[in-house]
């Protein structure tokens, strides 16, 4: 095959002697590297992982996102936290479909290709398990960002607005709730108020530019912006329009918040404003001794945009504004940054988020005073990281 005069191959051939001459320089390879690949893998030098623990029922439980290792606001799909109730089903998109029935004029079945014919949108939203940071509320501060608040991830989701499917089927006037059911082994199901269903819910088939990962609901899931993770039903296969909630196990005995007076709050949907410093944070070290460091972390609100993040280095006595990195999106992670000069003395680092409704992230004491220690879900308390004189950072003073 004839080579054009300025082809890449020709350039490499001409440059080869130069590479040889400079090969003694540190870090510059003298041999041709790995070949092209059809699906990319990360560098073997990058080892950040979700935390899989031993279990008698490995199909149920959680893995946490390693928040301390992430940059920007997007979580790689491969590191998005997991919460499964009966394992990850293996679903063939060619045979999978969604049944929409109940209080509609026209009960319909949508194949995955039917779904793709509707106008789609892409939106960046976080998903947070309502059990995130439950150990903090119970008085057991966790040692690093991953363990403390790693049931939180943020992705660009692409899908069809649920409202589009509901309008296509035609809602009857009695329609008040929608039961969404997954095709996992336990047919996980949650009831959603019709107002939210018509507002901003996506029937999502893609995450961060590619089809959903199996553990994130392939081939299709609900994304319910700002609301507790469990209601973002994965492996969606049925939508039942009803005049009342079904009162499934997950919305009665499970994801309800027990109060000190023995009552329990039901249908506690929004995830309230929260933030956490991810660097420097527990498990890390201030390697350069006293001097300049960047404090960075993530803030979010299930009720809209983050308006403000403040930083304290003295356990909450004094606060200074962090800068918010663009974009600042509704019901999405917002990255904050703060230039800090460490004087070498012990410090207690905190971040505090205010959202566009004016709601201010509470301290753990304030949260416990209002809800006790056994409400388990929806812990959005301020997290403290203690910097010790030797530069180590931990979750305890």
């Amino acid at each position, binding site marked *: 095959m004839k080579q054009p005069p300025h082809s890449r191959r020709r350039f490499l051939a001409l440059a080869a002697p130069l590479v040889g001459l400079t090969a003694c320089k540190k870090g510059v390879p003298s041999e041709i590297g790995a070949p092209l690949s059809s699906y990319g893998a990360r560098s073997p030098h990058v080892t950040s992982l979700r935390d899989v623990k031993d279990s*008698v*029922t490995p199909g149920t439980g959680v893995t946490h996102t390693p928040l301390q290792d992430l940059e920007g606001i997007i979580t790689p799909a491969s590191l998005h936290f997991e919460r499964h*109730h*009966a394992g990850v089903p293996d679903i063939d998109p060619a045979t999978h479909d969604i*049944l*929409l*029935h*109940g209080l509609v004029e*026209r*009960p*319909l*079945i*949508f194949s995955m290709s*039917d779904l793709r*014919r*509707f106008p789609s949108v892409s939106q960046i939203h976080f998903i947070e398990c309502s059990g995130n940071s439950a150990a903090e509320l119970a008085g057991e501060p966790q040692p690093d960002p991953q363990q403390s608040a790693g049931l939180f991830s943020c992705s660009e989701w692409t899908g069809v607005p649920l409202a589009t*499917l509901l*309008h*296509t089927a035609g809602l009857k006037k009695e329609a008040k709730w929608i*039961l969404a*059911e997954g095709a996992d*082994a*336990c*047919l*996980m*199901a949650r009831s959603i108020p019709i107002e939210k269903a018509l507002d901003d819910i996506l029937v999502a088939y893609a995450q961060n530019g590619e089809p959903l990962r199996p553990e994130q609901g392939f081939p299709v899931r609900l994304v319910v912006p700002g609301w507790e993770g469990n209601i973002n039903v994965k492996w969606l*296969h*049925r939508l*039942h329009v*009803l005049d*009342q909630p*079904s*009162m*499934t*196990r997950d919305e*009665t*005995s499970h994801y*309800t918040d*027990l*109060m*000190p007076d*023995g*009552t*329990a*709050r*039901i*249908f*506690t949907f*929004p995830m*309230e404003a929260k933030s956490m410093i991810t660097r420097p944070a527990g498990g890390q070290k201030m390697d350069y001794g006293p001097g300049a460091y960047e404090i960075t972390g993530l803030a979010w609100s299930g009720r809209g945009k983050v308006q403000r993040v403040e930083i304290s280095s003295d356990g909450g006595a004094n606060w200074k504004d962090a800068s918010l990195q663009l974009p600042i999106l509704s019901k999405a992670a917002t990255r904050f940054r703060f230039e800090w000069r460490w004087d070498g003395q012990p410090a207690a680092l905190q971040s*505090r988020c205010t959202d566009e409704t004016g*709601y*201010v*992230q*509470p*301290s753990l004491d*304030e949260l416990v005073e*209002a809800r006790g220690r*056994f409400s388990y879900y*929806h812990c959005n308390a301020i997290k403290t990281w203690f910097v010790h004189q030797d530069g180590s950072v931990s979750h305890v003073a």
Partner: protein
Amino acid sequence: MWRSAILPICVCAIAFAQGRPATEAEIKARDFTILPNGTGLPKGHGDAVSGRTVYEQKCQDCHGLHGEGQSGKYPALAGGVGSLKSVNPIKTVGSYWPYATTLFDYIHRAMPYDHPRSLSTDDVYSVAAYVLFLNGIVTESQELNEKTLPQVKMPNRNGFVADPRPDVKSKK
């Protein structure tokens, strides 16, 4: 005149994608929904006597002889009544669950954990009756069916309140 020109465009915009009509048979085959008033309950019956046999074969290994569960592994199904205000709240079917229909629904769709939907309808009624019996909510011979199950009064039926948040005021 302009109206009739615009209308067809609107119709096209709504109708260019549809899905296909679902038949009654398709809906019936996939409809697992059960409501607190009993809507959706399949015809069938059972009591705690027949339920004990099912429970011993299918449930007891995980949930224990008396529904006590295994701490940190498998949830308790019985006990804990009166514990919700304490420093050791125990949430079980008897102490916490507000509807008997939820118990039936969950067993029906998701249990046993490793073989969901392997029980017959009568076995589901029976084992639900046995779990309620372990909690002292029904008698051993009390028959549960699609009519009587929704009438079972759960002890914590009125224990749930609507979401009052935002409820925490930061003192900043």
